[in-house]
């Protein structure tokens, strides 16, 4: 029996994946465990190992195409088997899928704006114009007269990539609202199952013609000016979408507050100089920061926690994520596990390996998920201080600025020059209160200024 090969969730946050490349081609035999293809997820590119055996009869999603988790990407079965049923099924799903774009999130009411935007993005510019015309025509005359509507639908079905049968799937309510408002249902992108147009889609579609008109107007102006060149539309890749989603969720849901102080860096710098004389490979400042954060977290486990809606988890292991910029663009936080029970050299070795993988996009999900605390360091860019967005499931993130020579006056007004670094702790107030965050940060500062305190 031929079976579909389904897209599976290769990372905890993955909702869809893009086929980076097929390792097998149609007609190849496949054993369980063979790598079928490489899949680009929201965070990394990973091998898709087959759990099925047989012959790869058909590749449904070719190189570069994306599939939602659970969607068929290929068919495996016996050589020569009839797979027309599965093919037809896949074709139907694919056509509908194109119609909806990548809008994974269907929702009611609140999220309608999104569906509309997805549809528009897919059509870019002119599509908006096209959508406007039939709608206006509907309003002009033959309201919901089926004779006038049918050809419009048929034309749209081919352009909009609807089901092969030419039928536009829509809920009865969506049809009624569309007909009342003179909207051609065939022009509305559907967010429901199989691309079905639902109420929310029609309601959010209403603004589309007006928006298209404005767009056209500004474009016209731009042509006369014609100097700075055209604006660039940059497609949102998986990584960017995930960053937008996760950090948006964190910033909008977790009530952030910020604590800032500056640290005298003489203690930590001299400790680092001494250590680096004794070890073959220099230990990074970030490893020191992770170690001190871990020591402080051990003493303040309430900061090493996570908000879970109806309860709070206080983690036993201190797993610290460090924000790393990827060479291909984007951001990822590799996680050093169990920092509370490890030495700096050990942490640093781990960190170097993880950072290397992170830059190349080769981290495995278990290497970048589940940080209980995070650190972001923009000191290298000359940033004096900044506030970071908490990286869930953790409840706090520490933002590090650069170390600067600072004039310091003692009680007798004698001036000395001290290297100082400003650091800002962002806390989730649902878990960490002001005083608790302040105690943690102050403890960490005192350890950094006098590293022997880490032994106390």
């Amino acid at each position, binding site marked *: 029996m031929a079976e579909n090969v389904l897209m599976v969730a290769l990372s905890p946050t993955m909702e869809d994946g893009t086929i980076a490349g097929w390792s097998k081609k149609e007609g190849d035999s496949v054993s369980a465990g063979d790598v079928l293809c490489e899949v680009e997820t929201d965070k990394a590119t990973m091998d898709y190992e087959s759990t099925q055996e047989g012959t790869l009869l058909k590749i449904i999603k070719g190189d570069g195409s994306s599939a939602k988790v659970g969607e068929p990407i290929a068919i495996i079965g016996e050589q020569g088997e009839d797979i027309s049923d599965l093919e037809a099924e896949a074709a139907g799903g694919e056509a509908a899928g194109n119609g909806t774009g990548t809008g994974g999130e*269907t*929702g*009611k009411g609140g999220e309608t704006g999104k569906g509309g935007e997805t549809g528009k993005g897919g059509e870019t510019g002119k599509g908006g114009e096209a959508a406007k015309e039939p709608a206006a025509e509907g309003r002009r005359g033959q309201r919901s007269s089926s004779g006038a509507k049918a050809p419009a639908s048929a034309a749209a079905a081919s352009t909009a990539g609807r089901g092969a049968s030419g039928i536009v799937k829509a*809920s*009865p*309510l*969506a*049809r*009624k609202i569309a007909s009342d408002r003179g909207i051609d249902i065939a022009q509305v992108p559907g*967010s*429901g*199952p199989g691309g079905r147009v*639902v*109420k*929310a889609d029609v309601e959010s579609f209403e603004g589309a013609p007006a928006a298209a008109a404005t767009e056209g107007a500004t474009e016209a102006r731009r042509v006369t000016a014609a100097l700075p060149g055209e604006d660039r539309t940059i497609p949102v890749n998986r990584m960017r979408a995930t960053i937008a989603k996760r950090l948006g969720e964190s910033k909008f849901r977790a009530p952030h507050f910020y604590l800032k102080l500056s640290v005298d860096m003489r203690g930590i710098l001299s400790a680092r100089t001494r250590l680096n004389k004794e070890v073959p490979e220099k230990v990074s400042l970030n490893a020191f920061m992770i170690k001190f954060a871990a020591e402080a977290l051990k003493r303040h486990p309430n900061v090493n926690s996570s908000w879970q809606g109806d309860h709070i988890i206080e983690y036993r292991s201190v797993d610290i994520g460090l924000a790393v910029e990827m060479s291909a663009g984007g951001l990822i936080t590799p996680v050093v596990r169990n920092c509370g029970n490890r030495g700096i050299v050990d942490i640093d070795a781990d960190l170097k390996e993880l950072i290397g993988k992170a830059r190349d996009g080769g981290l495995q999900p278990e290497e970048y998920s589940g940080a209980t605390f995070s650190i972001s360091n923009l000191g290298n860019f000359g940033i004096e201080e900044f506030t970071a967005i908490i990286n869930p499931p953790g409840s706090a993130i520490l933002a590090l600025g650069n170390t600067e020579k600072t004039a310091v006056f003692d009680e007798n007004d004698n001036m000395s020059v001290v290297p100082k670094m400003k650091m800002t702790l962002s806390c989730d107030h649902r878990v960490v209160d002001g005083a608790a965050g302040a105690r943690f940060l102050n403890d960490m500062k005192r350890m950094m200024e006098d590293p022997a305190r880490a032994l106390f």
Partner: protein
Amino acid sequence: MAEIAVRDALNQAIDEEMERDETVCIIGEEVAEYEGAYKVTRGLLKKYGAPRVQDTPITENGFTGLGIGAAMVGLRPIVEWMTFNFSIQALDQVINNAAKMRHMSGGQLKVPIVFRGPNGPAEYLSSQHSQALQSVYAHIPGLKVVSISNAYDAKGLLKSAIRDDNPVVFMEAELMYGWKGEVPDEEYLVPIGEAAVQREGDDVTLISFGKTMRPVHEAAEELANQGVNAEVIDLRTLRPLDEETVYASVRKTNRAVIVDEGWPIAGYGSYVGWLIGKNCFDELDAEVELVHSEDVPMPYNHTLELAVQPSTEKVVAAAKRVLYME
């Protein structure tokens, strides 16, 4: 307002109606000396004596027919079936006599009788004793069919059923007899043929009746936690059905989930689904969902027994499907 169990609410209804009208009587297996298999008739034999409270042999076809005959000649009998599974024995009497006499006599005869007892699965009772037979009775013109879900309706609807001049099939449930609820001290009636909106919401309509109202309310709570306002309707009377209350709600929410612990084929829930599809077609933003018992005889194994029936999780999942939430 006193808080009393469903069995006591039923007992009060029977007691008050026997007190009020001396043609009201009750017959069935164990209703007199033993005071009812589920203690619904507690104290009644002592108060009213035989034959107004009359034990019978184990002969459903016989005593049901006896009751129907008595109703035709002037009494208002309540026939207690120990369970609706046993009522299958008496189907010929109910369908061919109780439901037809008024029609076939051109209105010369009336059959003011109540058939009552527990319907639907309880626990550990296997295939023959776990049947939900609402659609069998609701199928028959000439009958009224009531299904209660709480103490208030139990009392108010049973009193209305006893006073009704038509045969009324009155469905309770074993697991429900101990459920407590508030019942007014003063007399009241709940009219037959009126559904109740038990929780207001505008996102999705959950429709059920009888014992499954519990998982339905739990599902509504769970959905509320997820930001969904479900409207909950207890049909209360299956025949005649209060269609308008259902349509008004579905027209508001554009979505319906029906929960029926019966089987799906030719089932009562399927019928309600058809009505909604027909009468609210332009208002529906999703297909109508039906949460029903699986189309199999009841397994004896307890895990399987629970798995085949509607549950809170199944109702939540169905609601989320029609809301396009997953």
